[in-house]
């Protein structure tokens, strides 16, 4: 099946803002993490957020011109756009510094080719794969009963035993198993949707098999738990970096506002 024809991409082409938000929710952290690494600490929190939005907005724009015949992976495509957006930002900054008005590079179809500059590394590919799994888990969480999902989370994602979960939830162990089974079924469906939606090549689609996510229940849980925990580690590192950047920005702002009072009062975020 050619994924460019899927309902989701049709929604993107139709400028459905909710589809854009889903894209943001799923891949925003990946793009932000990648830009952060490229920026090597020189990009502030606000800039990172802007660039991430620009990247995903550019992806939405360019979906019109996407040619599936070129056989480009979704992950590579996303990376090329991010690289392009970052390059554009650097050009703009350089131009501003010189006091000139150099125009940013235009978005063209060169992203669809294998860029020499933006070759994805193993960490990046892992992040994209994890983001797809994460999107599936989020969708499953929305569909499943809260208690069922929490039982599955404790059992598989937090690797706890059924008896302990039963005690916490006030149910028997077989009930926990039943809850987990329900969530697993939903998860399998959502995982298929997510992978199909965000994979442009057969190689990308086969990643679920390689990650063990097409196996029987026990292996599926184990593989999912592994991907989840790996993603948690990555996200925790990203979050730490973001918090450090925010703290730095706040310290700078505080230094500017020397007349800051002892007490604190609300300020707006609008």
């Amino acid at each position, binding site marked *: 099946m050619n994924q460019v024809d899927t309902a989701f991409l049709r929604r993107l082409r139709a400028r459905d*803002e*909710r589809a*854009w*938000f889903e894209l943001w*929710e799923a891949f925003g*952290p990946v793009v932000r993490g990648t830009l952060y690494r490229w920026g090597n600490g020189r990009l502030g929190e606000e800039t990172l*957020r802007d660039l991430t939005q620009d990247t995903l907005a550019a992806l939405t724009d360019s979906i019109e011109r996407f040619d599936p015949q070129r056989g480009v992976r979704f992950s590579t495509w996303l990376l090329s756009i991010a690289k392009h957006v970052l390059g554009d930002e650097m050009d703009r900054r350089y131009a501003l510094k010189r*006091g000139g008005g150099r125009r940013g590079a235009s978005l063209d179809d060169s992203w669809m080719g294998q860029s020499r500059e933006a070759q994805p590394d193993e960490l990046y590919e892992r992040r994209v794969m994890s983001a797809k799994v*994460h999107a599936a*888990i*989020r969708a499953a*969480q*929305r569909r499943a*009963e*809260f*208690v069922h999902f*929490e039982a599955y989370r404790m059992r598989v994602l937090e690797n706890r035993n059924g*008896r302990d979960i*039963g*005690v*916490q*939830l*006030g*149910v*028997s*162990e*077989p*009930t926990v198993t039943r809850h987990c089974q329900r969530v697993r079924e939903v998860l399998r469906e959502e995982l298929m949707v997510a992978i199909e939606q965000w994979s442009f090549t057969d190689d990308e689609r086969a990643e679920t098999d390689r990650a063990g996510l097409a196996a029987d229940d026990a292996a599926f849980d184990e593989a999912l738990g592994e991907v989840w925990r790996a993603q*948690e580690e990555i*996200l*925790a590192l*990203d*979050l*730490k970096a*973001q*918090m450090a950047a925010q703290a730095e920005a706040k310290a700078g702002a505080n230094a500017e*506002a020397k*007349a*800051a*009072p*002892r*007490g*604190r*009062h*609300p*300020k*707006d*975020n*609008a």
Partner: protein
Amino acid sequence: MSGGIEWTLAVLATIAASAAIVAAGLALGRLGVVAGLLGAHIGRCAKQFGAGIVGFIGGAVVALLLLPVALARLVVAKPATAREALASSGREAREALVALYTALVVAPLRLVGLGPVLGHVRTRLPAALGEGGSGGGTGGGGLRSSRADFEGYTVLRELARGGSGARLYVCEPDARTRVRIGLADGFVVIKSFDFDDGTHLAEMLRESRSLDAARKLGLVLDHESSERRFHYVMRFHEGIDLGKFARRLHEIAGPDGLDRERFLLVAALVRDIVATLRDWHAAGLWHKDIKPENAIVLDGRATLVDLGLVTPLASQMTLTTHGTEYFRDPEMVRQALRGARVSDVDAARFDVYGAGAVLHFVLEGTFPAHGVLSGFRKPSPECLRWIARRAMADFDHRYANADEMLRDLDRAIAGGDPGAVRPADLPSMRASQEEPLPGEGRAPDPALPAGRPALPPPPDARTLGRARFRVTNWWTGSYEMVSVRPLPASIPAQGRRGLGPPLAVLTAALVILGAVLAAWWWLKDASTGG
């Protein structure tokens, strides 16, 4: 006989001498404390003087350096950037003068105890200058613009400006205004929107929309609008924001996370926020920007502040995506992108999400960057994690309202150990617990002994007494738990620790010693004469 008297006098003299020595020691000790305080005061003033001088030198150097830059830009025909450089130079020069004023006027006056007078002058002088000379203009030049004049209020200081462009002033109402707005003590914050300060009409309108409802709730004490300015008055809450407070607690606790008492403390603080939300929602308002920075912690209590985004639940306006990342409900963003109106959705649940995110934050010390899927990496009580997740769950699965979340929080706190409460014990769980299949009983709780008494009935959120905490040291995060008691009508004066008592004892001891010595000398003289 004479020997007996002499012996008695010797004992009295010894006692008096000992008392004199002890009293002298105490007096010297207290003198040492006074000297220490005086030294610290002198040190602070010296530091202020030094900082002022350094600031003056730095500012003056930068201001002077910027002048040739401006000139050079003018020469290469870049007048816009030259103006910028000139303006920067002016700003630096102003800063340098303020620093010099601090060093030469503020620090010496503070040294001799005239600091409070300076504050008064800073408040009054600009107003006096505005009345006298500039014809009511808004021009600068004074320490504060005349736009900061509010009838019935004395401006004490200005706070950092918010994102809406409004200015925030801490003020003291005069006696008549206090009666009018019903505020017996404490200060107020005036949030002022002024077109001349760059405020936009949209921001003014947004804030004014909820004013009536906020006033009914007692959140807004007073407000006034004129052709170019609009301001409203709120109670000022001194304290530290929950974000800083929780971060500090986690810094002290280290990677192992908080201990039982601190979990209890942070849960109680979030409980305060949720209780406030329940009241606001009942009054038809939602906050829209729940985050740790919008809760002020003082004496173990959290107070929700910031009315910037408060909106009536029945508003016909279209939802907007305003709010703060990580604490803003993704569902709200989805609905806003769909173009939903506020009244079309149960917006109170967006606040519930924010409260869950705040609970996650205080338990972990980090943002819940992935909503309900955000992990807990530090140890924390299962029931509190459960409450945070339930609040952040998908819109249809989360707590139906703040009251439901509040009852769960109350249950977690009530026993004094959230770690001992299972999710299954929470009122919301017991209400929604599925019936077991035939032949499948409920799992016994191995942690509880057989024949254990039934759990107490769900506490009534409105009447539940709870432990209160008083933070005794903000720096180390230490605090003490105090029971809830009605405040006494008057607060008894604390024991004084001045120089008076030891000096009085010393004087008395010396007088007695003198009398004893005189008596002994008289007796000795009499016996020698006889």
